[in-house]
């Protein structure tokens, strides 16, 4: 199948699913109205509406091509970093390193993807960013809580810029018989579909069957039943999507399993960060979903792992 056929089939399926989801949401809403309304159903409908917006953005971006994808994720990173730093206490002495994060490091990281410069993309933030930021903070002259402040800024930058930038970086992988035909965007769609379906299905399975909490102190909504049921279903979705990827069905299910597990761990770790800061959501940007980082927490862990596995096993 060529890229265009894949595109039409895939978006045909996604749109039908969304239409069905919207219909169910509408029926549930009508039934709940008679009983005085229901918060879970309102939240579900808000999520479905946000899903429509996200799918339309990704479809438009698909038509616009490669650079649009890079810009889209750069904007997503910008919002995520903004949410992270907003909730993290900083001092006036951190102003210069923060300005450099937002106006220099973030744009350069994404420019490196657009420029196809993989070698520098992989080490730019972990080496040069890592060394530059504490030097800038030290130059500010404020040594109060120095290590904590430097650590928080670097951690935020690594999660929201470095890790998330691995999703559009899938455009750089060279898989023979696949990448030559410009189909790498499908790898990104595979990653995003599995991650988001895993999030949503874990939520649904957790609501329906959830009993045993995995980490009650960190994230009360994560249950064993939700993780197993939602995770296995998401692996099923990933396997069923093998035809858009260069993988065999078995390889696709393995990749989907890795994405599900990494995404779950990402959600867990970032929940712990939220708890330690004392916030419930990262922001209020996307109705029903919280902030940008609430939607991308699993992506930030799954994208780098998926990228490097694909690169290691499928690039000659």
């Amino acid at each position, binding site marked *: 199948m060529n890229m265009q056929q894949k595109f039409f089939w895939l978006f045909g399926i996604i749109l039908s699913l969304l239409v069905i989801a919207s219909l169910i949401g509408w029926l549930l809403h009508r039934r709940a109205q008679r009983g005085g309304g229901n918060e879970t159903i309102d939240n579900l409908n808000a999520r479905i509406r946000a899903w429509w917006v996200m799918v339309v953005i990704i479809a438009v971006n698909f038509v616009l091509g490669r650079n649009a994808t890079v810009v889209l994720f750069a904007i997503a990173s910008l919002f995520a970093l*903004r949410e992270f730093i907003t909730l993290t206490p*900083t001092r006036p002495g951190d102003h210069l390193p923060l300005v450099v994060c937002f106006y220099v490091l973030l744009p350069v990281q994404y420019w490196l993807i657009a420029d196809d410069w993989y070698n520098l993309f992989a080490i730019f933030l972990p080496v040069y960013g890592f060394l530059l930021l504490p030097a800038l903070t030290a130059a500010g002259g404020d040594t109060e809580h120095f290590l904590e402040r430097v650590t928080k800024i670097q951690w935020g930058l690594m999660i929201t810029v470095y890790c998330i930038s691995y999703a559009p970086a899938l455009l750089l992988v060279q898989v023979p018989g696949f990448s030559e035909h410009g189909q790498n965007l499908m790898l990104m769609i595979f990653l995003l579909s599995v991650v988001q379906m895993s999030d949503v299905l874990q939520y649904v399975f957790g609501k329906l069957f959830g009993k045993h909490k995995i980490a009650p102190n960190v994230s009360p909504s994560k249950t064993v039943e939700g993780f197993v049921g939602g995770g296995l279903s998401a692996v099923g979705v990933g396997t069923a999507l093998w035809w858009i990827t260069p993988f065999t069905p078995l390889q696709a299910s393995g990749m989907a399993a890795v994405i599900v597990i990494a995404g779950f761990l990402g959600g867990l770790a970032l929940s712990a960060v939220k708890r330690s800061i004392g916030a419930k959501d990262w922001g209020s940007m996307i109705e029903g979903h919280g902030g940008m980082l609430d939607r991308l927490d699993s992506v930030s862990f799954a994208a780098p792992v998926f990228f490097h596995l694909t690169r290691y096993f499928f690039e000659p």
Partner: protein
Amino acid sequence: MLVQYLLAFIVRVLVGARALWIGCKPSDAVRIYFANHTSHMDTIALWCALPSNLRAKTRPVAAADYWHGGFRGWLARHGFNALLIDRAPGNRDRDPLAPLAQALERGESLIIFPEGTRRAQALPGEFKSGIFYLARQAPAAELVPVYLDNLYRSMPKGTLLPVPLTCAVRFGAPLQRVTDETKEAFLARARQAVVDLA
């Protein structure tokens, strides 16, 4: 008009300026918004947080020596419609609050920063007496406390570029009028109303 919309858009992208109406709702009553002052963005951020129909008749009070001439002067006049006042003590042969009282009489609302100067900290310092005399001259105006969150982190004193954090603008309930209140008691109460929103 176009300049105003553009300015509001840029400010929202840069510092968020999300309005949270906690103690009151947007209204076209004559109001004196008073807030903590931590950065040069404050004036514009508070003004941008208001709905556009209120922006047209709400005038930030700003220092003539800073918002004067060049780009800043142009921005103050055509951008956020500032009411410039002279803070140099030498020129005070007439009442410095007179232009403010006149604006309130014309039915315009004002944005003021009672500390008089910027402070790089979360909580406001002592209020200067200007707000007390202004409140006495305009007994009908609603005194709305406002807390500007995070702007002191976004653009601390002495820096040129704002860090694009999400800054919130919280509007509190209008201050009760108490008859025969001393200046000190009023100023402490007004400051506390801003602190309570922090």
